[in-house]
């Protein structure tokens, strides 16, 4: 086993995890919402990107924005259905509804795209960089760059712009923010459409690495959860570093122990953290930066 190669794999995987988790980080930090349909949104994003490239003949650079637009639309529809529950902070209903949405998306994707697995090839994924025994693809490099740009951009928007200030106000106290004149409804819509667009973007970037199947998505939810909790709920910077750490752990565990049990291993580490610091995790729930 080439340890350096595994570290490269882990860094790429870690940036992929961080990219997949970024929408959820904001969603949880701002609206205290969870989206169990996140994995299925990822799956739909991957399929739409594949469809746009392979069936509609679009260039990859256009296919990804198309997938993002579809993802944002899904996010808006979901938020519209959950608006009442969101304002009531009825988490039980929200969690169950997002599971329902995920199930609908699973059935609809299988109906539209078929149950056969698909491969998405891009010019970046076919371009290989070799350095002695080490190698990675252009797609791997693009994932790392995209994740860093997106995280830096989100951090800047949240900390340094008016939109970010409004989002942070809603995260702090939605009722008082509304009294202060913030259109909370619009912020919620914005956050959920960002979640949809971000996960579709992540799918468009990461999907060329793996076969695209309607059954995928469950592992992505768990990894996203691990990233968000490890990073400190709602922390953008924390999520980035947690994603990278999880990627390294997954790659090394897969290479050294067993690739079949990597998700289980990541989850057990998470459980250990939850048992050791049960209060510390939830206490950091507020604040989206």
């Amino acid at each position, binding site marked *: 086993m080439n340890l350096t190669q595994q570290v490269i794999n882990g860094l790429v995987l870690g940036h992929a995890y961080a990219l997949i988790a970024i929408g959820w980080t904001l969603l*949880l930090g701002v609206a*205290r919402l*969870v989206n*169990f349909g996140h994995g299925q949104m990822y799956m739909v994003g991957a399929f739409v990107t594949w469809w746009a490239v392979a069936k509609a003949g679009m260039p990859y650079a256009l296919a990804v924005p198309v997938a993002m637009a579809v993802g944002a639309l899904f996010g808006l529809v979901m938020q519209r*259905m*959950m608006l*009442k*529950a969101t304002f*009531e*902070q*009825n*988490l*039980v*209903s929200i*969690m*169950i*509804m997002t*599971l*329902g*949405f*995920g*199930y*609908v*998306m*699973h*059935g*609809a994707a*299988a*109906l539209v795209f078929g149950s056969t697995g698909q491969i998405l090839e891009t010019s970046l994924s076919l371009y290989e960089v070799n350095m002695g025994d080490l190698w990675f693809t252009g797609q791997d490099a693009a994932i790392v760059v995209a994740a860093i740009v997106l995280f830096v951009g989100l951090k800047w928007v949240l900390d340094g712009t008016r939109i970010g200030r409004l989002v942070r106000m809603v995260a702090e106290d939605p009722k008082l923010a509304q009294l202060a004149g913030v259109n909370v409804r619009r912020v919620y819509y914005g956050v959920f459409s960002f979640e949809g667009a971000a996960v579709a973007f992540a799918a468009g970037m990461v999907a060329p690495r793996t076969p695209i199947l309607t059954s995928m998505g*469950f*592992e992505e*939810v*768990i990894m996203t*959860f691990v990233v968000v*909790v490890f990073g400190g709920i709602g922390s953008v910077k924390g999520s980035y570093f947690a994603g990278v750490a999880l990627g390294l752990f997954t790659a090394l565990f897969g290479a050294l122990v067993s690739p*079949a*049990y990597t*998700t*289980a291993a990541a*989850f*057990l580490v*998470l*459980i250990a953290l*939850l*048992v050791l610091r*049960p*209060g510390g*995790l*939830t206490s950091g729930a507020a604040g989206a930066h």
Partner: protein
Amino acid sequence: MTHTKLRNILLPLVGVGVLAAPSMLGGTGSIYSAAVLIAIFAVMAYGLDVIVSDLGEVSLAHTVFFAAGCYTTALLSTRAGFDGWGTLAGTIVVALGLALLIGLVTLRLREFVFSLVTYAVGVVAVTLASNWQFLGGSDGLRGIPPLDMSFAGITLTASNDQELWPFAFALLTITVYLIDRFRHSRLGAAAIMTHLNPRLATMGGTDPARVRLQVFLFSAPISAAAGWLYAYQRAYVSADVLENYFLILMLTAVVLMGRRQLLGPLAAVALILAQEKFFSLGGYVDKIILGSVLVLILGFFPQGLMGLAKPLLGLFRGNRRPVSQPSISSFGDIK
């Protein structure tokens, strides 16, 4: 006539009607198959019902308890030659062990963190069931013998759905009785109090963590018992018993008629399975229907179908109850 007396008369009548229903509906193999599955899945949903409706948490690990019942039954019957009583006892012990483990780990977790951890438990369980050869790996476990619960010289066996129906009905009846007793017990009251106001519960001398664990221990064997009978109904078990379908079915069953309705999960499962078995539009469309029902009910009718019917019933009753007087059914819209 008081509400309780009316209920005590109506419930046995409903029971007799349900027992005779498959025969009255034609008594074909597909009718008995649907009836057995409705009973099994309703029992599975009742296990989750007390967690969602009474404790106010969303456990996504109940498919694991259901699967634990399936796998325990398959292992004990095929490898150790246990009969139905032995596999049922084993199922309950395993479910209690798992519930204790998950319950202790998640004892201080609430809301979405609790749900996410239980969801992760489900995903890990799928990984284990699909890869661990002890559990049959991706092939699963085959050759489960017919259900045999004979005792004291009385032969009680079932090798097809028609013969399984009385067992499924008995399991359903016992479950409904247990749920009803739970809701009239001190633990049931403590669960509601812990759900609505944990601080107040603590002031009243209730330990919320202890209550949560006890309710978890009460609910897990119920869902597992459904898995026990499901293993006999299918005669084989594989990782597909952990599919999301069962989770969505359970959740829809809990919310469709409205929470804390004693016969709600049964009626909801009957409606869903009737659509899937007799009015199916194909597996994928059925998925879309089931998921959409779940979303639409919670999005627009959070009190369920019974919540819609309540104003109509009020017209017949003449709205004798004052508006300000709380009723136990008003827990249906609690968060």
